[in-house]
């Protein structure tokens, strides 16, 4: 082997036959292994994770959970030591906000009661939205710079399936399940470039869609808005229920700007997600829902 290397470095010719004789088997074995991995992954993947990455994800899942617990502990210690005053102020603010919300809840209860009476009087059927949800912890965010996704602590064993909508504790959309393992799942976030949800802003039906440039800023686009429609800045965008993947009337975000496409035939708007995607720790996967209205 050393003679071959010396021959090459000194400029002497080495024949292809000699090279393949010494390295051909190794190269062939590695290429064969790569082909098996690729073909096997494509054949088996379907709606599940590819078997290699799935196996590694399953094996690393408890390790990642352990590391995350350690990181969370360090973060909370850091917060206690260096951010005590900030946390104290935030706690007081949350107490005041809680008191306001309780007062609003009493008003809302009266409004619901009045709504039910009016429905009975007018003979209107009740809108029902029932959702079966599974709570999950966000374990890690993807390190990709070309996509926006995160892992959660629930999987096939908990009833999670590919395509299930994911919301936060306030019922705001955060993403959609992309890949499922036994006890973990990968969620494509709301601002990911491959995201596409039927949406409505006021009376306008459109599509909330990811965009690469906007993804870097944590935003997404509202597209296919008819040129006759004029979305309003500050308007809330909800899911429309089109496609029956996402339940209707879930909050997606707020319109922050409106513009015309290059063709001039349609408008598009930029949406600021309602959910704080950068600080997600707990999410809910909607495994089933029923909506009549």
């Amino acid at each position, binding site marked *: 082997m050393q003679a071959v*290397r010396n021959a090459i470095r000194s400029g002497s010719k080495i024949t292809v036959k000699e090279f393949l004789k010494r390295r051909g088997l190794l190269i062939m074995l590695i290429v064969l292994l*790569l082909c098996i991995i*690729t073909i096997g992954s494509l054949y088996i993947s379907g709606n599940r994770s590819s078997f290699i990455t799935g196996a590694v994800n399953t094996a690393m899942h408890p390790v990642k959970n352990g*590391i995350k617990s350690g990181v969370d502990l360090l973060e909370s210690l850091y917060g206690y030591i260096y951010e005590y005053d900030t946390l104290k102020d935030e706690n007081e603010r949350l107490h005041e906000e809680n008191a306001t919300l309780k007062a609003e809840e009493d008003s809302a209860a009266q409004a619901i009661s009045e709504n039910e009476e009016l429905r009975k009087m007018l003979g209107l059927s009740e809108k029902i939205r029932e959702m079966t949800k599974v709570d999950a912890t966000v374990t*890690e965010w*993807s390190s990709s710079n070309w996509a926006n996704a995160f892992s959660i602590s629930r999987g096939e064993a908990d009833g999670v399936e590919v395509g299930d909508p994911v919301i936060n504790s306030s019922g705001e959309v955060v993403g959609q399940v992309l890949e499922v393992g036994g006890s973990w799942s990968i969620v494509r976030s709301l601002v990911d470039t491959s995201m596409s949800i039927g949406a409505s802003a006021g009376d306008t039906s459109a599509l909330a869609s990811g965009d*690469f440039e906007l993804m870097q800023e944590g935003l997404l686009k509202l597209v296919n808005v008819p040129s006759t429609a004029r979305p309003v800045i500050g308007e809330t965008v909800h899911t429309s229920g089109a496609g029956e993947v996402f339940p209707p009337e879930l909050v997606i975000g707020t319109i922050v700007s409106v513009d015309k496409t290059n063709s001039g035939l349609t408008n598009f708007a930029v949406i600021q997600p309602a959910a704080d995607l950068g600080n997600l720790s707990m999410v809910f996967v909607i495994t089933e829902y029923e909506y009549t209205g």
Partner: protein
Amino acid sequence: MSGSSKKTLIKVIKYTVMLLVLFVLQSMVFSRLRIMGIAPLILPVAVVAVALLEDATWSGAFGIAAGVFCDVSYSESMVFFTVLLPIMGIALGLLSEYFLTRGLLSYLLCCVLSLAAIAFFQMFAFLVFQDVNPQALLKTALLQSLYSLILAVPVYYFAKFAGRKGPVQ
């Protein structure tokens, strides 16, 4: 167990530990320490380091393992890095065995070429199948490569500590 088998086993263990440490750094530490929203690629530069320090066999095998873990940290169902990194490892391993002068400078040059190739393949789908502004893609690719290059130097010395300390004998 013979002396050389024992040394090989120790080297395998060292490279495995190195792989796991770098995987945790890439997927759980540097994914949070983003600069202008960009996270670095640490496992691919580790493959380049092993290729420059070892031979094609070691770098190909390390490339397969690093590729799998890289795909896991990217939350991808495709086997992009699982296929690309071993090919890169073998090619650079052969280059370093027969043509390149081994050292930090050669390593950094190989890192630049490898990171450029990876960025090109990552941009390809956006350029061909989606209507994305090429400038935005290039900006992401450049920032990713620069950030990864900064971390390439400590990764090189980490790999040197884990494996062989001199040229191939």
